[in-house]
């Protein structure tokens, strides 16, 4: 699997379930050691990387990773304390609508509320690179638009963003770079214009990923 996420852009990684999207993200954030090959993030090998490197990389896992027994703002304040110059909590929290459920324990949050909190957790350290594994899964349409706006803004500030998604709409709305993964291989990479041409993303995607399944 070979692909590159250009600095300062938003890279959308598409692919069927089991294609290797989450594995690729986990290798990029140092949670898994690749069986072979090389991974570099900001020029650094993410496996067993230093605190300095980890401070530059924001992560939102598909499995969440939020401690159950705490409340949203307490968690964000704690995570912020791990960074030298974190983002301001209250504008970020209000931007993601977290103030509406700030009094609720994480255990009792809905799926969409947890997604918003996990995204805030990924952004709290003002990362230079942001890895988001299906950030809008479970969000309502308004929530998705909020996340799109926020990610565009973060990218405009110079942050490199990598998102995995199953949504063609999301990829088209956000991506400056596309990666299509199928059965553990990158089967298409490039700008949306290069990958899609004069067809639709949907038809290109099914052509690329059906071949592998057949």
């Amino acid at each position: 699997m070979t692909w590159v996420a250009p600095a300062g852009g938003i890279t959308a990684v598409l692919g069927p379930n089991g294609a290797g999207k989450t594995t690729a993200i986990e290798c990029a954030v140092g949670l898994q050691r690749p069986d072979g090959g090389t991974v570099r993030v900001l020029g650094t090998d993410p496996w067993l990387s230093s605190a300095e490197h980890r401070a530059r990389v924001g992560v939102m896992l598909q499995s969440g990773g939020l401690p159950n027994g705490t409340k949203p703002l307490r968690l964000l304040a704690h995570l912020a304390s791990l960074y030298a110059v974190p983002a301001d909590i209250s504008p970020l929290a209000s931007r993601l609508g977290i103030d509406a459920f700030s009094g609720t324990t994480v255990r009792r949050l809905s799926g969409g509320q947890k997604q918003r909190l996990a995204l805030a957790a990924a952004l709290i350290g003002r990362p230079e690179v942001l890895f988001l594994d299906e950030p809008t899964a479970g969000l309502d349409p308004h929530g998705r638009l909020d996340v799109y706006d926020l990610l565009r803004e973060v990218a405009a500030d110079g942050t490199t963003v990598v998102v995995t998604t199953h949504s063609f709409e999301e990829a088209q709305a956000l991506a400056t770079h596309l990666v299509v993964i199928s059965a553990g291989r990158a089967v298409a990479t490039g700008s949306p214009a290069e990958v899609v041409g004069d067809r639709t993303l949907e038809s290109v995607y099914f052509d690329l990923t059906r071949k592998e399944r057949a």
Partner: protein
Amino acid sequence: MSAPATARTRVLSQARFELGTLLANGEQLLVSLILPLGALIGLAYTTAPSLGDGRRIDLAVPGVLALCVISAAFTAQAIATGFDRRYAVLRLLGTTPLGRDGLLWGKALATLAVEVLQWLVIGGVGLALGWQPALSGLPIALVFLVAGTWAFVALALLLAGLLRAEGVLAIANLVWVLLLVLGGVIVPRVAMSGTLASVAGVLPSAALADGLRAAFEAGVFDGLALLILLAWGIVATLVAARTFRWSD
């Protein structure tokens, strides 16, 4: 460029965070404080079971202090870590500047802080009930506190890193009860029947409790008990380092 807070700040912050979560958790508070307190008061106002020769309260308090360490370092820590692992909290924190080392140090510090609180409460109630500790034994007791914490946190991580969260919950509570009844904690080995006493003799629970009783009763340093505790600490750490899985 985004930079991490200093390592010291990160670890202290994690310890504070864990401590706050533990103290806000009713079940943890029950196992860590209410049950040991109940055991102490129960022992103070009864004559059975026999705790051996000596003033009953002087034998009871060190045993309950050992029980506190087992609650905080083993049962509470195993359950918390088991569920943090289930909900990917360990993995997410591993990607922050805190990292895995910072997480372990944070947990160790939070556990020691809980134990200090437990010891202040139990020690205070014990003194009110007539406990007369040998003050010269206090430094020895602190050595046993640290060694016991190490051994039991390592055992907690060994358990929490292997089984699913529900299994950890069940076994951590079961082990707590078994050690309480048969582990030479509250009822000293010398007051137990032959076979049980010799089994308990190699357990970390009895080693910790015997070490604390010797320290607080007469200011005596029980070297064999410390060796047994350290052996458990070393073995559990080595095994946990090999078997611990960060994801569920």
